[in-house]
């Protein structure tokens, strides 16, 4: 398959959105970044799936974001508690860039393993890497859930290219929503703990 320069547009969007998600301390911006990520996932999946099926990913991702956003109540929940100091942000930014660079460099090797066009290989890889980084850097339930959703969305990009089963797509959507609902439940418990 010939790679078109426009194919790299969702990769750029996914890199910016996942970096934003990694760096943002404000939950509203985090949910917006998650929504942008799912737009990029939809864009990438669109090249192999019909619009109707690809839209499932977008709608599910946005619903997951909405569920998480709705579960954060009051001013206490407005900020995700990682220390918003300059060094922390700089550290996260450099790590995020390293992940993007690493994925870009190893993508030809992964191509031998998975028959996926290079831009989408990079896009999915960035999501997987950023998701794992997000999970590894925090103990906060919201950030862990955002990391898991990012990781899974990267895998969904890969899997869309190798398996076109509607049933698997449906189940993955159920799992995405399930993780978001579980995140909402955990956030609810956390909010109760803060209010008590």
């Amino acid at each position, binding site marked *: 398959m010939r790679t078109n320069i426009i194919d790299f547009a969702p990769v750029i969007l996914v890199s910016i959105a996942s970096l934003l998600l990694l760096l943002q301390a404000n939950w509203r911006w985090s949910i917006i970044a998650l929504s942008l990520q799912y737009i990029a996932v939809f864009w990438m999946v669109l090249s192999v799936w019909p619009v109707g099926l690809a839209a499932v990913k977008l709608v599910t991702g946005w619903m997951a974001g909405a569920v998480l956003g709705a579960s954060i109540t009051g001013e206490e929940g407005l900020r995700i508690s990682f220390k918003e100091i300059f060094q922390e942000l700089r550290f996260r930014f450099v790590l995020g860039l390293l992940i993007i660079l690493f994925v870009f460099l190893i993508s030809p090797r992964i191509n031998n393993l998975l028959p996926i066009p290079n831009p989408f290989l990079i896009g999915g890889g960035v999501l997987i890497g950023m998701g794992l980084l997000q999970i590894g850097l925090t103990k906060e339930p919201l950030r862990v859930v955002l990391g898991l959703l990012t*990781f899974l969305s990267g895998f969904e990009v890969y899997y869309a290219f190798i398996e076109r089963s509607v049933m698997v797509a449906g189940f993955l959507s159920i799992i995405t929503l399930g993780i978001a609902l579980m995140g909402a439940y955990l956030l609810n418990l956390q909010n109760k703990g803060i209010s008590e």
Partner: protein
Amino acid sequence: MSAPIIWIGIPFLISIIVWFFRKNRPLIIYLISGFCFLLAVTALIVKFGEVFSLGPLTLEINTTFTVFGRSFILQDSERFIVALLYFSAGIWFSAARISGSNEFFLPHGLAVISFLIAALTVQPFLYAALFVEIAVLLSIPMLIKSGEEITDGVLRFLVFQTLAVPFILLAGWAFEQAPFSANSQLQFFQASIFLGLGFAFWLSIFPFHAWVPMVAEEGQPYVFAFLISMISTSILVLSMDFFNSYSWLRNEPVLLQSIQIIGTIMVVFGGVFAAFQKRLSRLIGYAYIYEIGFSLISIGITTEIGWETLIYSFIPRIFSLMVLSLSVAVLNNNFKTDQLDEIRGLFYKSPFISIATILAWFTIAGLPLLGSFPIKMTILSEISSTSILYTIWIMIGLVGSLFMGGRLLSVLFVSSQKTDVDSQLKIQETTAQAVFLSIESIILIVLGLFPSIFISIMVDVLNAYTNLY
């Protein structure tokens, strides 16, 4: 009526209905436990796919249920696994009230079992990963204590179990592609790496085991033991499916040796770390690591004896973890501690907890005359015929677990104050606690004295896996 509807669909529907009545715990406990026992007994006596008569009626339970072009097939030989899961869940649920588990334990627990059985029966079986993940998501509310904060262990449990899903799905795809690939050997090798990582996350195999003692310590030990028992049993049966379907896995010596090495590491890790634990709840985590190590060694043996020991190990493992977790849960409820230093001479205050703990731990350790002794003995004798080095390391793990048993004996039976007054028996357990601990302890003793009972039940399970050996 088909078997998947009876043993998957109806339990799931009931779990949804009882979720709305979960606050009414005594009623729900009777209802769900009774229902689980009924499903277990029915699975034991009714043959799937055969016509049988019930009074004037003639009934047939089909093995297959098809939905959206995918099939759920519950074969006759699998009914023993179904019966085991529901029977053990029935006992687990019936002691829910004295264990201090939260209101979600029963409805979510029943749903978890129905999804795990769905994972065992779905065809193509790579879909199993999706059902196991749904079961994991449903299990999270059960693990968090009422009114307490979310713990790191629970988050790690969610993360590690979720990370398994992509690897299992990719493994399924890679195994399907490998025979048609120009370099099929390489593709099979890559598929086995995906599969290995997936199973490593699922079964918390070394080095992905860190969350196990954490959840055991921070969460609810009774619920945690239920979850790891049910999930690990299902995953191990699923692993048999993979080995049965792909001959490459059975015939790759590097892979089999790696499984044995990792299994041995887990036995040593579980046994030695258990020996130095100061909290009983963490012991449940190390017992699980130790047991999974033995299961991996059984898989690595790949002979008929290896697979048989894997199947036979399910019953003593489930029941010993059940008894150990119940005694830890009751201990926590009665004394608000499970620190070994703080429960010296416990036998004189809580003899039922003490005896149950000792019995359960020695069953796990593999002491003669207890349930898992014949299994561990067989594994040791099989492995000793191929590698003396593995045997020595496994023995180190065994000695570690037996050392912990010795520590438990000295802590629980020797009073800190050596006066006659303190050494007199003053039972502080409630009647319900004493009854449940006694019944479960008796089950462990019976399993040890008459191992042929559970061996004869489980022997037919292997009939479904004709390619394994």
